[in-house]
């Protein structure tokens, strides 16, 4: 489980670093969030209240907020530059 989480984290990192399209970079960030959520779920039974299963929901809300704002910014910049790529 934790190896799966670290593998997803590494893949998200690679997507963030190597992809040129800003939207795919955002998808890589979603992968990073998912890796963190897997860790929360794994360690939830260590807590008698199982709060890890609860904080996952808050992380998801934060991820949704981040995706909304970042996509809005990407759309504005892409309209200005004519391309969603990060190196223009």
């Amino acid at each position, binding site marked *: *489980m*934790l*190896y*799966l989480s*670290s*593998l*997803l*984290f*590494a*893949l*998200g*990192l*690679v997507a963030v*670093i*190597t*992809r*040129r*399209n800003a*939207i795919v970079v*955002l*998808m*890589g960030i*979603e*992968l990073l969030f*998912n890796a963190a*959520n*897997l860790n929360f*779920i*794994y360690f*939830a*039974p*260590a807590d008698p*209240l*199982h*709060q890890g*299963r*609860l904080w*996952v*929901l*808050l992380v*998801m*809300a*934060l*991820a*949704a*907020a*981040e*995706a*909304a*704002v970042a*996509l*809005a910014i*990407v*759309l*504005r910049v*892409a*309209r200005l530059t*004519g*391309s*969603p790529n990060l190196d223009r």
Partner: protein
Amino acid sequence: MPLLNVLFFGFAALAVVGGTWLVLTPRVLHAALALLLTLLSVAAIFVLWGADVAAVAQLMAYVGGVLVLTLFGIMLSPGGRGGPASDAVNRLSGWALGALTFAGLAYVLHGAGFERLPWRPGAAVPIIAHAGSVVETGTGLLTTAVLPVEIVSILLLIALIAAATIATDPSDR
């Protein structure tokens, strides 16, 4: 091997395949489909590890919200044919950094040996939720974690208003 382990490793393999596909595919729409595969697999893994509410929220918030938002972003962005990944040097260094990260994390995890901790006997085996998992999470959301939930909801509201404001074309006003 128990059925739960087979299911877990199957969904874990699907998640990794989706992640790898996301990194490798040159087209943005295929990357979105790969992300869909990964998100669905992770939701299934949440169910296997006893987090029912998190799995449902994963389906609703990620697959139903973030991914659809991303698809709209792909459709609305000009020149969105995806384009190649970055230059060979950057790609190589990115993969090297990713491999290094995974190797480091795996080394630390192997050394830490969380499976041997007393609170989790046989931690390599997934657990299906006991009956009170949903009740437990709901109670927790309304008692111990009510302040974070409120803060996050206000933040989400502000972020959505800000996103709508940013995305509006000034010439349309």
